[in-house]
């Protein structure tokens, strides 16, 4: 029972990280039809900013400096996403394949620049001491960082859902996901919604990057690789353009992954692909998919 609880909570924590990567991918794809291969760069930029804040700006890690690192990472990644949207994506308006291709180029360049500046080695991101502790629930001993991932992802999920639900720009985004041409036809400026979505997606990925470097014990220019692929899988399983779908799919995949890995090392990755294939064969739009473009 204690092992079960440990694996379950670790899986949900992993799912929380997947969600942070996937939420932006899902919104960006849902609204603009852009498959964003540079999303991994947002994550890496967030992680490096977090590293900078928690080593150079505040050398003594406490809870508050870690929160500052997460916010700084999120903002840096969000600003980079905004910049990329303005400089590159905007100029390829409605050329979806080219937009996806150009993000591949951006991902390469960002990894190369970071590698050139900081080297390709793994660097440890300092965390407050209580991150290393574990708490016991019943007879299960669970490392406390899992709960941090879950809490942060939950806060961001609620924040993003509130923005989508209660603000005007959120309304435009939701409408745009369902039918973008109709929204523009009504004379509403969709471009602003594009920028917002890129910033929000970049922010979530940046925060995710800081947490992922805690989870995987380090920051490096190539850290995003498999996280991005998992992000894509979560988006497809959850359904494009649906935040709730991404959240559910992220939990499902995180938990399944952990359980499979517990029984056979390395089986997790394989089971996830199997889930993907099963969902696509039975419901090609994903669990809660809205868009079909």
């Amino acid at each position, binding site marked *: 029972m204690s092992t079960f609880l440990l694996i379950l909570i670790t899986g949900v924590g992993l799912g929380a990280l997947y969600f942070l990567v996937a939420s932006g991918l899902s919104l960006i*794809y849902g609204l603009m*039809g852009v*498959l964003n*291969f540079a999303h991994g760069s947002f994550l890496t930029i967030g992680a490096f900013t977090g590293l900078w804040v928690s080593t150079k700006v505040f050398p003594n890690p406490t809870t508050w400096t870690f929160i500052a690192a997460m916010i700084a990472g999120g903002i840096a990644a969000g600003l980079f996403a905004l910049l990329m949207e303005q400089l*590159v994506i905007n*100029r*390829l308006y409605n050329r*979806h*394949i*080219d937009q*996806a*291709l*150009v993000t*591949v*180029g*951006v*991902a*390469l*360049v960002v*990894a*190369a*620049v970071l*590698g*050139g*500046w900081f080297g390709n080695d793994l660097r440890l991101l300092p965390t407050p001491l209580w991150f290393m502790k574990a708490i016991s629930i019943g007879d299960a001993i669970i490392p406390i960082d899992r709960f941090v991932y879950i809490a942060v992802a939950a806060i961001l999920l609620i924040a993003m859902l509130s923005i989508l639900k209660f603000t005007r720009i959120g309304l435009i985004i939701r409408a745009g996901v369902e039918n973008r041409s109709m929204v523009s036809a009504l004379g509403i400026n969709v471009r602003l919604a594009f920028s917002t979505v890129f910033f929000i997606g970049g922010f979530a990925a940046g925060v995710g990057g800081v947490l992922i470097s805690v989870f995987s014990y380090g920051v490096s220019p190539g850290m995003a*690789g*498999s996280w991005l*692929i998992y992000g*894509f*899988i979560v*988006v*497809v399983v959850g359904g*494009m353009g649906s935040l709730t779908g991404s959240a559910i799919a992220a939990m499902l995949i995180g938990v399944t992954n952990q359980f499979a890995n517990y029984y056979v*090392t*390395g089986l997790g*990755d*394989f089971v996830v*692909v199997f889930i*993907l*294939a099963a969902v*696509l*064969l039975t419901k*090609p739009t994903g669990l809660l998919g809205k868009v079909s*473009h």
Partner: protein
Amino acid sequence: MLRWKYSRPLLTAVTAIFALLPFLGNNPVSNPGLQQTMAVAFLYGALALTYDLLFGFTGLLSFGHALYFASGIYVTAILINTYNWNFYLAILAAIIFTSILAALTGAASLRTTGITFAMVTLAFGQAGHVIISRDFGGLTHGDNGLPINADRIPSIFIGVVNTKFLYLLALGILVFIYLTAWWITESSAGRVFAALRDNEQRVSVLGLNPNRFKLLSFVLSAALAAFIGAGMLVVSGGGSPRFASADTTIALLLMVILGGPVTRWGAVLGGILYSVLGTRLNALSQGSAFESLPKFIKGPLSEPAFTLGMIFILIVMFAPGGISGAYYRARFKYLNKGK
């Protein structure tokens, strides 16, 4: 006609010169190091062409092409090393196995279209990478790579002195793939592939089953990729999980975009250029050329991915069609000058 009337003799002559270079005494290609580099570059040129068949000619953006390349490498290697198969028989079996694998995964992926298709193929490719790098079943040796048993491949391909034969082998494979791709794209099935890319609805209105032809294109390019994989096994001396990684497929995409899709020679040129640049930029950046630059410029420049990524972004944004596209635009302008 956009085609220059001497383009075919020119291509033949260039190929012949490349084939003779290792034997012509003192020139850069008589050095085994460069012969090895060029052999790998020829194979990537051929592989880029098989990807072009899928992406450029049929309009299928797949992110899992590396899977079939790696399957060609690993199935051949495993059959030779573990089961003591005959070299040629193993290659044939690898091609057949890969075709079946491509038929199964392709049929599942083709239930989706567009960007979703890209993601599903990415996931299949990733699954393949996981199987190879995690060493399921103890056949692939995981991240250590799988060196081929040198006793079991023709002795003409063994040893540094014989690197020129690896070079010729790679060039031969490239010519074979080029001719095959030519034959496929000019056949009636090839016309349907192009039609699918341009207007899928019209193809189905004409009474043809779009998915059947997409699957045909998918399986053909996978089978050719497996054949190139067998060549790569001989040239590079073994399998490595990086051949199956998503980075390899992304590199193929970059090659095709760099050289320009749908022109055949564009993809080949892009593949050769990308592969040679990737190796040479590395050597260049270790040299003294960038010594005097400040570190924040020198660092990124010493990473080949920076230069390649920048070129790629600029081509996608400002020069769609890549090198061959630019050539045809210039030629079109030239032909219409008098009118």
